[in-house]
């Protein structure tokens, strides 16, 4: 694939950008693929660290970011709004590359659809419940139900481990009302997906800042 790119691109600095991108991707994925061989507890551990998965996510991320750029140029581009839009696009791309096998990915995608309907002030659509497997999700980060659940957690009658698992369940999207083993399993998958998201966004940011400064990449 690297040879294909270098053949079709014109021999300017963009050529070095393309090889640098593939080199950076390989550099990122080589240490992670070696760790995936050692921790083969199941399919899940290798899933988020394979190079194919990273490439898949990166392409989706770039496409989503392109759409964000197009929409934000028309509306009022305050830096916080743009950052949030980028974050939501990245989360959505991450959830899509999870292929709907995990609760948190379904919750992220269903959350987005619910917010869309709420903004348009339509009555509740009954076609949505096929997507939503958890209960009502009222915005994982801006939930108004958070105050009630915090007061419940401060009771000391709940053992420590259960209390911490509940806290963990609030951090992982869509797992607020799940049982303990479900929350733990979702958390393991979610952490690995987040790590991949951070790696991909970091490399993309480095790439963009490198090409912005117009200095020849290494």
């Amino acid at each position, binding site marked *: 694939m690297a040879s294909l790119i270098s053949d079709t691109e014109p021999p300017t600095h*963009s050529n070095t950008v393309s090889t640098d991108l593939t080199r950076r991707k390989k550099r990122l994925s080589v240490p992670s693929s070696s760790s995936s061989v050692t921790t083969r507890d199941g399919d899940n551990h290798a899933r988020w660290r394979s190079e194919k998965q990273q490439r898949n996510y990166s392409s989706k991320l*770039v496409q989503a970011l392109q759409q964000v750029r197009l929409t934000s140029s028309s509306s009022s581009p305050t830096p916080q709004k743009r950052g949030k839009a980028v974050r939501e696009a990245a989360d959505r791309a991450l959830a899509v590359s999870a292929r709907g096998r995990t609760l948190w990915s379904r919750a992220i995608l269903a959350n987005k659809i619910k917010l869309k309907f709420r903004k348009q002030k339509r009555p509740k659509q009954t076609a949505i419940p096929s997507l939503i497997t958890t209960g009502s999700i009222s915005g994982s980060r801006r939930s108004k139900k958070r105050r009630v659940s915090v007061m419940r957690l401060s009771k000391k009658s709940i053992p420590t481990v259960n209390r911490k698992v509940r806290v963990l369940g609030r951090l992982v999207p869509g797992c607020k009302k799940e049982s303990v083993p479900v929350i733990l399993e979702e958390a393991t998958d979610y*952490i690995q997906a987040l790590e991949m998201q951070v790696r991909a966004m970091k490399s993309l940011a480095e790439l963009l800042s490198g090409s912005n400064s117009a200095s020849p990449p290494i």
Partner: protein
Amino acid sequence: MSGRRSRSRQSSGTSRISEEQINDLIIKLQQLLPELRDNRRSDKVSAARVLQETCNYIRNLHREVDDLSERLSELLANTDTAQAALIRSLLTQ
């Protein structure tokens, strides 16, 4: 291990069946965390500590994603449209 078993006697009886399952999941979680990966001795790291570190780690990752997305939004605003299209075509091939 014995500490965890005595704790389970206080809780309801149905949780004892899946206690091993939960412990397995917590061990798996511990191996994911960068802070606790080196301590393989299970009696040193309690389940509560693993869960606390997990929460902290997820919050850290969320914050990193937020910072990165802010940075990306600034970069995308300044990037030349030709270069952005170039990057997209590179990644979708």
